[in-house]
């Protein structure tokens, strides 16, 4: 039982990492809280579904096209709406939340309700780890997450664009003096965040079905993990996901499944009380020290 709980806790944590890394990356670079993040996740899922079922594209092609389209939506969102309100936090939140609502309710209006919307698993099999059966899709999620985090690390440390991302994230005004286009980088950050939401949808959705209401759940999970880890910190997201993921599964196994949501919320409250900027957060670090 203990081994099984640990295995599924790792998987749960990795799912949380995948769900929140895009949201956190966008905030870390451009300072924009993209409240349309969950909607972009659902947009990608339904787009993949339509390309697969209605257009008849092979799954990998459908997934890639869907990721690209979601990235374009993210970029357009920034260029046409967010650029005008950038820096006004409340306006950014209202604008992105409004866009998110519009996307989700549009799908509902189009009749995307019911349980028939799903994406197929990549490999239809399950494997035994120790004495515990784990399906191949969950193993793929873990592998995809490790690869994705690794690629992101290489990208931001060894490519000029990635270094520009970090430059803007560290000090936007100084980066401007070096000729970096802040709006262009912000566009790319929102776009990349959206693309990461699409990647998450493509690998996680095959575990279940696509439903409009999931958009809100994804946003809440991304917010919870990012707040605990510290908004803008990738390391924080990973640590927070592991904390919440393990806490949820152990609570589920040894206390009761209906307590799992309470554990996540309690973790947010405790972190906010002890360290308001989150585990690795930099936003108010100086104020906290003073």
């Amino acid at each position, binding site marked *: 039982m203990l081994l099984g*709980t640990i295995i599924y806790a790792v998987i749960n944590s990795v799912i949380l990492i995948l769900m929140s890394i895009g949201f956190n990356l966008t905030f870390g670079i451009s300072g924009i809280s993209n409240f349309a993040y969950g909607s972009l996740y659902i947009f990608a899922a339904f787009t993949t579904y339509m390309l697969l079922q209605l257009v008849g594209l092979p799954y990998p092609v459908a997934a890639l096209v869907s990721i690209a389209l979601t990235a374009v939506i993210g970029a357009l969102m920034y260029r046409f709406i967010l650029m005008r309100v950038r820096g006004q936090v409340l306006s950014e939140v209202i604008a992105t939340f409004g866009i998110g609502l519009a996307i989700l309710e549009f799908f509902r209006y189009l009749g995307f309700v019911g349980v028939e919307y799903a994406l197929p698993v990549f490999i239809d099999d399950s494997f035994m780890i120790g004495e515990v059966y784990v399906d191949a899709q969950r193993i793929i999620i873990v592998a995809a997450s490790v690869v994705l985090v690794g690629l992101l690390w290489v990208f931001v440390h060894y490519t000029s664009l990635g270094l520009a991302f970090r430059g803007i994230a560290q000090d936007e005004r100084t980066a401007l003096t070096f000729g970096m286009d802040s709006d262009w980088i912000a566009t790319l950050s929102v776009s990349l965040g959206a693309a990461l939401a699409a990647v998450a949808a493509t690998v996680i959705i095959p*575990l279940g079905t696509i439903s409009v*209401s999931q958009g809100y759940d994804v946003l809440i999970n991304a917010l919870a993990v990012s707040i605990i880890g510290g908004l803008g910190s990738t390391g924080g997201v990973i640590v927070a996901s592991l904390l919440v993921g393990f806490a949820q599964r152990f609570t589920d196994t040894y206390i009761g499944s209906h307590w799992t949501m309470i554990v996540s919320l309690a973790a947010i409250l405790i972190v906010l009380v002890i360290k308001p900027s989150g585990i690795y957060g930099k936003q108010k670090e100086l104020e906290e020290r003073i």
Partner: protein
Amino acid sequence: MRRRLWAVGLFLATGLMFSLCAYAAEPIVIGVPTSTGFVEGKEGLAIVEMAVAEINAKGGVKVGAEKRMFKVEAIDIRDAAPGVPVPEALMGIEKLILEKKPTVLLIGPFRSEALLAAMDILTKYKVPLLGTIAMTPATEGKVKQEPDKYKYVFRTCLNAIYLVKNLVGTMSHINKEFGFNKVYIMHQDVAWARATADGMVKNYFQKAGWTVVGQESYPTGAADFSSALMKARSAGAQVILPIFDMPQSGTLVKQWKAMKVPALMAGFISPLAGPGAWKTFDKKIGGAINCNFELGSAIASPKVPQSVAFLKAYQKKMGKPMEAGHGPAPTYESVYILKEAIERAGSLEPDALVAEIKKTDRSGVMGRIKFDEGNQAVFGMDPKEAAVASVFQWNDKGERVTVFPESIADAKIMLPAGLKSAK
């Protein structure tokens, strides 16, 4: 002279046209206030329109000496969506009543608390409701306590008590066939599912000598059931009883298959109801047993030919099969119950209509329909005697085979790999 004749003819023709228009402009309005953003509401509304089209195509409804058409007016009251307060649903119902002046309401709220609160509105405006989703028996209690006040509320679908009776029947059948008596209960953390699970423990498992090796409740939206499945395995559960109506609950069956848990999965998981579930869940649901609340709701039986014809007609109209295992059949029946009641009453006067609805005795897609003193359609185990639910098992070919009640069963229950009969 000829010119005068033309003028008179034109005058008469215009008069006739106007009178025909006036005649056509007075259809009988059926109001449909429900959550159309959910599959049961969406398909339910399509079925009301289908039944209305059938009736109108045959000339409409005879009200006294005249024939009148049905007309459908719907509103999305969104009560099934998380976080939508009951007053918002009530406002939707009242708006529909005041603006569209319906003679009767069909389907109605999803949530029992919304239905209970709506009962006074229905009394205020004297608009009968034939409800087909919300399942609380509390409405029947109110009808029985104050029949004159609440006589306008009927329910044609299964209620929570009948659901428990069907699940008890299924468990009893499993016990008789295989000698199983260890159950692990997993249910959604919502009122109706909790009440059903507790009802099963109190009214059946404890009395029939079963051991409940675990009971787990899941918040709506939960999508990982690995812990409970591991616990069920280690506790030696022979049967897992799931009670869920959230979209994510289909994942439970996929995980049960992937984790190769040697226990029979038998209960209610709403996403498993329709034929599309086989494809949706990657053909990973073979062996699962599911209770569709009414025969005709996404499953038919050749022993009730009306149910077969109903599903065929739906597929022909919509171009795809029905998926909701709760609501469609009683909704279809409700339109015909209404038609027959109007024709018997010869009037649209609410009290006369209600009195005639109460006298209903018809054989339709879910069996024989009669109402009890609480205005609840009577459910039983034989479609010749009462309305019936349908408990079926997914086989490994992706077919749904009815296994209970015995009066409509097509096959015996098959055990999943790794599980042997205890007999």
